[in-house]
């Protein structure tokens, strides 16, 4: 049984390395994510954020602008997940006198 | 040589994960898991994403460790299998 587990782990590792080898190298300027215009002739989101983040919000930290302004509904979902965890612990685990 | 440092971090990561799986004492396993989280944070910082590394260091190595210690305090300290 132990040998079967390690065999399964080895097969999964081979698949993982095979998938990762197709990715472009880190910091590659020719990768599709680093282009200004995507292959479908539309503007890539990253280029837009780098160009307009300071102009739009006067905030130097681009990550903060993306998290709290451009993609704020995503962050709202994150806070709702934390709140749902708190509510679950409150209703199941809290002991009342 | 950044790649040598990253290779060393990955080796420590895998060794820490395997040790955390094999340990019978659950408190020691929690401490090894916090080491794992901290190495993940260092790898994230070496990849250039400081925010993700900061979050991983604060949450994975700080608060999750406290919660797992509390869970061990409420249940048992030895692994069954």
């Amino acid at each position: 049984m132990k040998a079967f587990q390690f065999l399964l782990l080895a097969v999964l590792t081979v698949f993982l390395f095979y998938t990762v080898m197709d990715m472009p190298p880190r910091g590659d300027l020719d990768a599709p994510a680093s282009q200004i215009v995507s292959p479908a002739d539309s503007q890539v989101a990253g280029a837009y954020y780098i160009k307009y983040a300071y102009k739009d919000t006067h905030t130097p930290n681009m990550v903060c602008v993306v998290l709290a302004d451009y993609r704020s509904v995503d962050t709202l979902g994150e806070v709702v997940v934390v709140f749902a965890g708190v509510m679950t612990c409150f209703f199941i685990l809290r002991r009342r006198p | 040589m950044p790649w040598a440092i990253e290779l060393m971090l990955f080796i420590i990561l895998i060794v820490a994960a395997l040790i955390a799986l094999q340990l019978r004492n659950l408190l020691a396993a929690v401490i090894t898991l916090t080491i794992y989280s901290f190495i993940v944070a260092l790898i994230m910082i070496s990849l250039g994403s400081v925010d993700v590394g900061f979050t991983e260091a604060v949450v994975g190595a700080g608060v999750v460790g406290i919660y797992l210690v509390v869970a061990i305090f409420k249940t048992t300290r030895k692994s069954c299998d």
Partner: protein
Amino acid sequence: MITQTQSPIIEIAARGLAPFIQLLGIYVFFHGHYGPGGGFQGGVLLAAGVLLLRMSMGSVHSQAHVSSKKTVALCALGAFIFAATGIIAILGGGEFMDYHYLPVPFLEGPDLRYYGILFVELGITMAVMTGLVAIYDDVLGIGHAGTN
């Protein structure tokens, strides 16, 4: 329930260390506009300071810092601040979470969005900090019968 520790070294060390952890948390929260950090990380650091006091001084004696009666209500208030900012932007004429349309006098354009981001991060910090402390209290229990 965790009782108060018998060792004076641990208690003095925890009580000396906790304000500095929380000061770092406040710094990370307010410095999120200019460097790595932000609401989530700052809230977790503030909660870590409170949890250090909870673990060292015992659940009963550390009620003076953050009372466990108020934590769930403050968590709900933090999530409400976040959602209400978006809904006020709708009432101001824009779309959901468009801080450009918040009805605040003497501010407009990019500066309004700057303070909108700060306000939203305040909501995240409140929700995360009090939420983590509330989960800790619910899992362990407080001890004397009145509060829990």
